[in-house]
């Protein structure tokens, strides 16, 4: 039996290398879970510290102090104030950037005052010589009264020393505070401490300032603590004083232990900043970056996507010819295989977009974009930081909505959450792709630009413009008071680390497959069931059809097709599609599209899968041709014209651009806004807009 695992929490300023260190320590053992109670993702992994001792490592969001100003940062406070043994960390590993040790030590000093065993890992020591920094490690250890290790997470240096320090710190299990708030106002803090001596003074102080009380605190104590809260200006003043006092202590310590030779510290930053934040080039470069991303997503993903498409079609054929006939085989061939294919097909595009976002964040460029865009975004009720969710939204709205957590103003954050689903997520792409290939000719415009690609670009633009306009309207109509405080750190430019980028892409892609993927697969199966079952008229379809066409002398194949079509029409799903047909006929759709609309109300991408299912159910031929070919040849029996003609296709494109058709997103919005009000507003607002716009488009073009 090995000893009980040590729980280690990684805490530090943003961009100090917490995630890099986390990746080094845990490798592929990491997984994303939920904090119980706080519905926020928790990244966790295991690490072998020594032959007999393992550790569970938790990666926390970056923060500058434990006084939170955003949802992201409040997680750190909540984790630290937890007293129950199961959840609270045994050892805190503070990761600091060697270049900005002073500021990093502020957070360290606060954590130290909670009297939790703390290890300080000073990261990026590979930069020390270049920046002319020297550290007296022994003296620093002495002064800080804790384990200090110099590491380079990127170069994989000092990792073993971190592990040893964690064990040592855990065994010693003693921690002394670094600052004593009593020095600010002895009487005031003496009185505070007297409320419950079981807590450290700093814990009590945090309860007062953050109004965050542990469960085990009694009612009387809580009341006493709240009474400290009455004099807000005094509280604020003391918080200010405390911060200054902490910096004074830190300066004292660093004075003799941390030296910087300023003459050596010249860097690339200033030069690059001149270019990237230039009033003209800055925007120009950003636009180029966006175009590059956009172009690459298509260039790089088309091959794997075609491959996936044909592989799954072949797999269906293979299964069909090798499995015994029966309900179970039908389920596999018509339900499960296309369902899984419908999830897998997104992976290339999502992964490529996340790859770019990860690279932009890693290099430090994303903060420059935030800087460039803040003023513009503010006019539309958002925040420079909203640009990251809006770009992420072109992969998937779910991670995009999570990315809004860094926005500290509630109104700006809410508006961002509400408009993100307008951006063209990858679930819309297969719908767009198939419709565009059906209704837009494959020709070149201006001699070189592919018309189909141009249409897609316009749809992306439509998504962004609608998002921005919607934000503007929301800004004017939402009556929410919230302070809009904004501060962003501009990190140093860095070359991205391959490991970090790959882990990030892997994590987000996995989250998509497991989250949205489950819904898609489940729906595919439900859909298959609804399409292959029905009331009385469905069961009699075969008999009736044979009788009806008995005098027409049809061939066996033709007869079989006729039967299948009648069956589909009379299946449960056919009945549902038919029942909404009157409502969608003005938009140019028939009942088969109606079926696809119904099923895509859970997730858009199901549109393609549904049509695939409908057509493979409808035309029961042995060769499963690709979905596209089937749709192209689909004729409306009433008019004799193609169903997917230009007006109907355009109307569908507009519908999919605007409608809120993603159950997974609605669930996330509910989680993040803590009420059903906002997801419902999204559902009805967006879908209503979609209906009206599609109606207009079809009626004009028809």
């Amino acid at each position, binding site marked *: 039996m090995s000893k009980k695992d040590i729980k280690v929490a990684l805490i530090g300023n943003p961009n100090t290398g917490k995630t890099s260190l986390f990746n080094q320590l845990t490798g592929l053992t990491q997984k994303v879970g939920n904090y119980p109670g706080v519905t926020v993702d928790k990244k966790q992994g295991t690490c072998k510290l020594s032959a007999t001792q393992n550790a569970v490592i938790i990666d926390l969001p970056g923060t*500058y102090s434990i006084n939170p100003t955003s949802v992201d940062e409040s997680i750190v406070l909540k984790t630290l104030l937890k007293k129950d043994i199961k959840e609270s960390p045994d050892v805190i590993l503070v990761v600091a950037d060697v270049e900005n040790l002073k500021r990093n030590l502020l957070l360290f000093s606060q954590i130290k005052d909670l009297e939790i065993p703390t290890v300080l890992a000073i990261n990026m020591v590979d930069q020390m010589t270049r920046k002319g920094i020297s550290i007296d490690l022994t003296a620093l250890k002495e002064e800080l009264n804790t384990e200090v290790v110099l590491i380079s997470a990127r170069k994989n240096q000092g990792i073993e020393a971190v592990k040893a320090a964690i064990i040592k710190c855990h065994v010693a299990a003693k921690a002394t505070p670094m600052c004593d708030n009593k020095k600010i106002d002895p009487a005031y803090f003496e009185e505070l401490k007297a409320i419950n001596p079981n807590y450290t003074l700093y814990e009590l102080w945090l309860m007062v300032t953050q109004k965050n009380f542990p469960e085990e605190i009694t009612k009387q104590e809580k009341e006493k603590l709240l009474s400290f809260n009455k004099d807000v200006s005094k509280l604020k*003043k003391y918080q200010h004083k405390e911060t200054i006092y902490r910096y004074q202590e830190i300066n004292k310590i660093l004075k003799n232990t941390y030296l910087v030779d300023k003459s050596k510290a010249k860097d690339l930053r200033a030069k690059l900043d001149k270019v990237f934040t230039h009033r003209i080039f800055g925007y120009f470069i950003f636009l180029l970056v966006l175009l590059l991303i956009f172009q690459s997503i298509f260039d790089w993903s088309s091959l794997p996507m075609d491959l996936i498409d044909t592989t799954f079609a072949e797999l269906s054929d293979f299964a069909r010819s090798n499995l015994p006939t029966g309900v179970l085989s039908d389920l596999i061939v018509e339900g499960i295989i296309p369902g899984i294919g419908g999830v897998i097909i997104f992976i290339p595009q999502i992964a490529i977009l996340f790859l770019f976002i990860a690279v932009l964040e890693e290099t430090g460029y994303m903060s420059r974009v935030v*800087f460039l865009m*803040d003023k513009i975004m503010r006019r539309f009720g958002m925040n420079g930081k909203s640009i990251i969710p809006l770009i992420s939204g072109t992969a998937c709205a779910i991670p995009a909505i999570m990315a809004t957590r860094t926005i500290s103003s509630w109104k700006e954050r809410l508006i961002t959450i509400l408009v993100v689903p307008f951006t063209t997520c990858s679930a819309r792409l297969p719908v767009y792709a198939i419709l565009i290939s059906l209704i837009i000719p494959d020709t070149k415009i201006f001699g070189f630009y592919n018309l189909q690609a141009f249409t897609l670009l316009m749809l992306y633009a439509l998504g962004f413009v609608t998002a921005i306009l919607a934000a503007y309207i929301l800004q004017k109509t939402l009556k929410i008071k919230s302070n809009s405080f904004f501060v*962003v750190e*501009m990190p140093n430019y860095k070359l991205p680390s391959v490991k970090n980028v790959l882990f990030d892409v892997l994590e987000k892609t996995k989250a998509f497959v497991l989250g949205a993927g489950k819904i898609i697969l489940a729906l595919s199966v439900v859909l298959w069931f609804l399409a292959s079952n029905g009331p009385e008229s469905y069961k009699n379809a075969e008999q009736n059809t044979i009788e009806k066409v008995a005098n027409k002398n049809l061939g066996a194949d033709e007869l079989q097709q006729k039967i299948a079509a009648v069956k589909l029409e009379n299946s449960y799903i056919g009945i549902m599609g038919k029942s909404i047909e009157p409502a969608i006929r003005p938009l140019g759709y028939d009942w088969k599209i109606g079926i696809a609309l119904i099923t895509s109300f859970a997730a858009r991408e199901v549109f393609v899968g549904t049509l695939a299912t409908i057509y493979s159910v409808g035309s029961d031929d042995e060769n499963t041709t690709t979905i596209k070919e089937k749709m192209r040849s689909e004729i409306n029996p009433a008019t004799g014209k193609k169903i997917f003609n230009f007006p109907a296709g355009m109307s569908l494109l507009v519908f999919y651009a605007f409608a809120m058709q993603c159950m997974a997103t609605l669930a996330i919005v509910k989680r993040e806004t803590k009420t059903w009000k906002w997801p419902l507003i999204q559902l009805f607002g967006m879908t209503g807009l979609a209906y009206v716009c599609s109606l207009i488009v079809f009626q004009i073009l028809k």
Partner: protein
Amino acid sequence: MNTIASLHIGEMGYISEESLDSIPLKLLEMGCLPGAEVQLVQIAPLKDPLYICVNGSHLAIRKETASKIKILKSE
């Protein structure tokens, strides 16, 4: 009275002691302390936000915040 917002690009100043109360806690925590030297590194194309360097931290803050933080210009 000079504030961070009245600096020109590249110019430096010292944050004055009297503006302690008007500096948001978060900025204080990030190193924007009274007495610290502050440099205006860059102004965003639309004149807002401002990109400053103080106490080794490179920060972007909005003009509204910057115009509340008084400074003494250094020659």
